[in-house]
């Protein structure tokens, strides 16, 4: 079902937790709210579930406004960070809980429980207690417990945090396949950019209670709107420069034209640099300060005199094999078109 959030504001005491949050999610879409801890993403999710009521603004599910509907009348699926499985009930009883309180006939309940447990691949564990399950199995029970009620939307709050790194990736892929198979509109909250990139159709980046940017993963990676977004998703080299007559000088021999005036922030992704020959007329000259191998690529940090921060490069492994710490290198850009130029807001 379609979800629309209209100008939601929420304060905890004097603290602005959510400021004018707006979001529209299409039917069957999987959107991730991504941001650092304390950015308000979990509060926004809890507003959708009805655990929090926003101070102002509206939430629409389909055509119905649900802003003030109590959390037990919304039929919105919620998977908690710790899964919140009922420890005194077996797996089957946990999954059955929502049907039992709705007084669904017991024969139909049994059928639905079997079907839903089969969907998440756990029907052989129906008589176990949550304590007897692994983290991944517990997460699947939590999903089954939410999905059995055919909720209007599914909400996941940092649902992969409790899993170890290897299992996390496979559960993320599995989750995406599952919600696409069911066709349910899903909102996930996470602070993990890899998770957001893995599962999302679109990502909404949140910062200090605001949604900074919404877009597909590649949109956001390639065209960040703000410096915060550029730094938060992936690694970014940030250069602050002044525009002179529509031209910005980034480095020796590297100029680009822009329509913006005043100060701009230029974002360079690590893979857009490359190591040039010694007599190259453009780019930066520096020394390798740090090097680490990340499998197929090598990450380099290069100290350049006229640049405050170290340049962070990512180059194919074979090209960087003999670039050891202390070696002098020339660095340039593969293509100026890949740069992102962000204008600074004019302070009034």
């Amino acid at each position, binding site marked *: 079902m379609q979800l629309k959030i209209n100008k939601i504001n929420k304060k905890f005491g004097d603290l602005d937790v959510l400021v004018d949050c707006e979001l529209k999610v299409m039917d069957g879409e999987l959107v991730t709210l991504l941001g650092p801890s304390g950015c308000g993403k979990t509060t926004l999710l809890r507003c959708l579930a009805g*655990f929090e009521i926003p101070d102002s603004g509206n939430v629409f599910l389909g055509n119905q406004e649900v802003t003030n509907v109590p959390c037990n009348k919304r039929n919105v699926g919620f998977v*908690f960070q710790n899964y*919140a499985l009922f420890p005194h009930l077996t797996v089957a009883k946990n999954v059955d*809980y929502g049907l039992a*309180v709705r007084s669904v006939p017991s024969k139909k309940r049994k059928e639905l429980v079997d079907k839903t447990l089969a969907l998440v691949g756990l029907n052989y564990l129906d008589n176990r207690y949550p*304590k007897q399950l692994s983290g991944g199995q517990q997460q699947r029970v939590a999903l089954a*417990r939410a999905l059995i009620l055919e909720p209007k939307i599914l909400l996941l709050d940092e649902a992969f945090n409790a899993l170890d790194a290897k299992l996390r990736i496979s559960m993320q892929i599995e989750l995406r396949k599952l919600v696409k198979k069911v066709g349910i509109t899903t909102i996930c909250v996470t602070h993990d950019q890899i998770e957001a990139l893995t599962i999302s159709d679109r990502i909404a980046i949140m910062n200090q209670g605001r949604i900074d940017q919404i877009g597909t993963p590649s949109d956001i990676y390639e065209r960040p709107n703000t410096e915060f977004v550029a730094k938060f998703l992936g690694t970014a080299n940030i250069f602050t420069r002044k525009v002179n007559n529509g031209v910005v000088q980034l480095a020796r021999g590297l100029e680009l034209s822009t329509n913006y005036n005043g100060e701009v922030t230029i974002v360079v992704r690590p893979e857009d640099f490359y190591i040039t020959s010694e007599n190259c007329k453009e780019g930066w000259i520096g020394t390798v300060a740090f090097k680490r191998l990340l499998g197929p690529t090598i990450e380099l940090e290069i100290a350049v005199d006229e640049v405050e921060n170290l340049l962070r490069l990512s180059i194919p492994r074979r090209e960087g094999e003999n670039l050891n710490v202390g070696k002098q290198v020339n660095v340039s850009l593969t293509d100026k078109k890949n740069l992102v130029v962000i204008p600074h807001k004019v302070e009034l």
Partner: protein
Amino acid sequence: MNAHNNLIDSIFEILRNIILRGGIGPVIPAIIFLFFFFAMPLVVLCAFGFVSIDRGVVDWTSISLDHLTSTIKDSLFWHIWWRSFWVGTVSTIFCLCLGYPVAYIYTLAGRGWQILILVATISPLLTSALVRTYAWMVILGGRRGVVNSILLDLDLIDRPIRFLYSDFSVILGMTQIHLPFMILPLITVLSARDLSLEQASLNLGASRLITFFKIIVPISLPGVIAGFALVFAISYTNFIVPQLLGGGNYTTLAVQVYEFIVVILDWNKGAILAFLLLTSCFFFVLGINYLGNWAMKWKEVTR
């Protein structure tokens, strides 16, 4: 001299080990204390029930079960036992019904109210149970009692109501005096509970009432069992309250033990009653715990 120093050194060494190394070491002083001042007297008391005592002289060679068999053949004993059991059980159930809401409200309240509830719960424990029992006599007493005099002044009744010296006054007094022992374990368990379980229940469409009975109550069962066992044990064996609020003709097993040992000076009879009271109490508490473990088998499972 040298040997003397060595002895002191080795004592310090043992103390250091006890304090620093952990293990069962740290409980040794408590075990020694309890052995001499609790277990030994108890064994001696119980032993008195199985030997004959003549004018304060114990004949340790005359071991027999005569006192035990004659006591359990006596229908009066069973009558008194039933009253102990009944009064203990009813007041424990009242404690649970009154204590649970208090503990639950405590977990919902703000910090200020929490402190108030805690002070109100614990402060009665600072006065002796005897004083509180006397207070109930003042409140419930005859024409001059607080309740009766108010009701008489308001012309709601013609004659004072006989509150004192009944099951009512005994159960009322016991419930009030033992209530903190029910509230405290319940608060411990309820305030440690995972609030997301309740939110999950609401999210799945359950009302707050259903959430309370299907989630909160089962989760808090360990506290209920602990409180129930504790309060039952002290209610079943309490002798001050039935003695004072029950009046002279109201006897329970605990009152009988007191009467026989302190008033009548029949130590044989008193000791055998004490033995029966304590062992039966022990088995009741064991039974409550067993039932609790059965109801909480989900807590014991492992992967």
